[in-house]
């Protein structure tokens, strides 16, 4: 009984978060962001079925997300015009998933013949092809403008009209919960394990008697199904789908989410999706260079933390499992490391903002608000101050980071010593 509760505990917490957050953050803006988070979580988890569990790096997974979105919008419009039969809006994500599945089966047949870098290039090719098609098949895609619809159609079972935003939020929340549960269950099946095996050692998997291409194809199709499900929810949420939803930028964003969150951990993509959605919707209003910060952060993660944020957290799992008190000795070094990194970050961000402002300002304009301080880009003071902060921060980081590593090593040594004893 306790084991059962322990296993389902995390799911209960997840359900509680989905149900209770609207009570705390009830503004329209917050609801919209949380809805986007739900969609991003499904999409990111679907993407990680490829990248994390199957070892397939795709640059074009937005194709299935976006195409399902287009089909969902068309279905809603046709339903409003009573051309096609009624299908409950609450179940439309299934329809989107099937659209994704069909395209995933068809395109995956060609692209999953290869793994690794070739698979990545083929996925990019298909992505570019579909993006170009949005400008050619105008009746279906309507070019750069995209298509829109009204989600308030048909009968209203239990008073659910999807007029109010809160109803759409709960629609996304319920589907997000179900999809996460389903994708977690898939990782526990023999197929999920085979997918891992094909990722790690395709030759050996072949010797055991599995058809590696078949395994990749199945993983790709399933992943496309969930991507399509997310795409349908995206379409219902915004009542609009544009050509950017199938494009490279969208595929890149989901890759960033998954990688920054962590590919080798089931909950990593969830973390990444929540964080990146939050940053995208808030940073976009503060700075114009936010995409640059994103890119730099991503590059730094690839070099220094290929396991993502979840990977960094899981490095400490043996420590807290052995003795939570061991973490206490790590607080100071970690706070030092984070603090110095923050100082360096502030300096670098200040410099980037200065460059950005001076090359984008209107003629005659010189004053800008930099990190809360009003200053002039023509005076040397802000440049020197920012450069000094950045340099100082980097010098301090070179001292504090080794200290962080030492404290982690010490804790791990202690864990090993106790395990041996």
């Amino acid at each position, binding site marked *: 009984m306790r084991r059962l509760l322990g296993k389902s505990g995390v799911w209960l917490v997840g359900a509680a978060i989905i149900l209770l957050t609207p009570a705390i953050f009830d503004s329209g803006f917050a609801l919209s962001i949380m809805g986007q988070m739900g969609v991003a979580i499904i999409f990111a988890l679907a993407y990680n079925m490829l990248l994390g569990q199957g070892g397939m790096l795709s640059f074009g997974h937005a194709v299935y997300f976006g195409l399902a979105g287009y089909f969902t919008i068309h279905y809603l419009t046709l339903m409003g015009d009573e051309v096609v039969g009624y299908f409950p809006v609450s179940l439309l994500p299934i329809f989107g998933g099937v659209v994704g599945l069909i395209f995933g089966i068809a395109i995956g047949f060609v692209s999953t013949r290869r793994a690794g870098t070739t698979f990545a290039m083929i996925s990019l090719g298909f992505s*570019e*092809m579909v993006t170009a098609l949005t400008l*050619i098949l105008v*009746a279906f895609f309507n070019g750069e403008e995209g298509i829109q619809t009204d989600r308030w159609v048909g009968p209203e079972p239990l008073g659910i009209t999807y007029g109010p935003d809160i109803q759409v939020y709960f629609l996304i929340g319920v589907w997000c919960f179900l999809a996460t549960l389903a994708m977690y269950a898939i990782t526990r099946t023999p197929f999920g394990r085979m997918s891992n095996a094909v990722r790690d050692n395709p030759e050996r998997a072949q010797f055991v008697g599995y058809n590696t291409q078949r395994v990749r194809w199945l993983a790709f199709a399933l992943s496309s199904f969930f991507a399509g499900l997310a795409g349908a929810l995206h379409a219902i949420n915004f009542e609009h789908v544009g050509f950017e939803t199938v494009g490279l930028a969208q595929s*890149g964003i989901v890759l960033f989410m998954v990688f920054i969150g962590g590919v080798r951990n089931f909950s990593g993509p969830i973390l990444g999706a929540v964080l990146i959605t939050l940053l995208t919707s808030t940073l976009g209003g503060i700075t114009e260079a936010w995409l*640059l910060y994103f*890119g730099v952060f991503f590059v730094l993660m690839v070099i220094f933390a290929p396991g993502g944020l979840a990977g960094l957290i899981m490095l400490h799992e043996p420590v807290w499992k052995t003795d939570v008190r061991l973490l206490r000795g790590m607080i100071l070094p970690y706070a030092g490391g984070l603090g110095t990194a923050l100082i360096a970050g502030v300096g670098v961000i200040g410099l980037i903002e200065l460059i950005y402002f001076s090359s984008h300002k209107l003629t005659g304009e010189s004053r800008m608000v930099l990190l809360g301080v009003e200053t002039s880009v023509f005076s040397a003071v802000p440049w020197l101050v920012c450069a000094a902060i950045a340099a100082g921060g980097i010098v301090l980081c070179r001292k504090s980071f080794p200290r962080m590593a030492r404290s982690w090593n010490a804790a791990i040594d202690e864990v090993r010593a106790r395990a041996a004893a």
Partner: protein
Amino acid sequence: MTALEVLLFSLFNGILYGLLLFMLSSGLTLIFSMMGILNFAHASFFMLGAYFAYQISKYVGFWPALIFAPLIVGVVGALIERYGLRPVHKFGHVAELLLTFGLAFVIEEVVQMIWGKAPVPYEIPQSLKFPAFNWLGLDYSAYRVFMVLISVAIFVGLYAFIKRTRVGLIIQAALSHPGIVGTLGHNVPRIFMLVFGFGSGLAGIAGVLGGNALGTEPAMAIQLGTIVFVVIVVGGLGSLGGALIASIFIGILTNIAVSYDISFRGFFMALGVSKDAVGVGSDLVNMTSAGISPILPYLLLVLMLIVRPRGLFGKRDV
């Protein structure tokens, strides 16, 4: 123009465009065949070459820019290899591809940060702005001839360098047997760094020459970058000759599609789509080869992967 003239004209223009594609893909192929790295940021180096050349030629003119811009791009490439790619090499090729994808993103943003989102006025040098010859009533500028000469020189020079010189031999050996080459006293990591820098520099040359012919703007990297990937897959990964043939083939294919402007009306009507169809049907009936020319390279990629996955000249399945 007669039909024959149109054919010759589009063949000629296709070869010109194809040679530019080849200049771009030669560096990528070199890096791939030597190091096994698929560099997503390769077209970003092309873009950097164009922007550096624009900035340099503003002060000292085109000819110094032709020398210095590729050199700077090469140094940037070598630094990226040293401090970015070398640390992730141990995580495998997918990690390297991820890193270069992130870099492509960062470089595009940095270019926008410094030079803005609008195209910059990087122009063809005055000294090459005269018509070199007149053919079928059309003038061909000396600049285009110059581009052709440079790309042919790159092909011949690279081929001879890799296949015929001792340095090329060592580089080839460093990929297949890094341990033995290292034991023989060669600094293998430094060889990789130099190869990567050299390949980036080649993209830089293509940027200097192509930037003023095609337009210098932040979107240029993505536009050409994906087509260059098609080129090296179709040509066969790591094959320089394959890259040349595939580049010219794609150049001619897209040019013929545009200049002939074939209508697919008959084809889709034979499939049962009515002439007066509405919606998607009307898009299909009114589709022309010029309209679909942007997707032709990708269709070629898919067909090639189904029929012959190793590409034209690939030694093994990709």
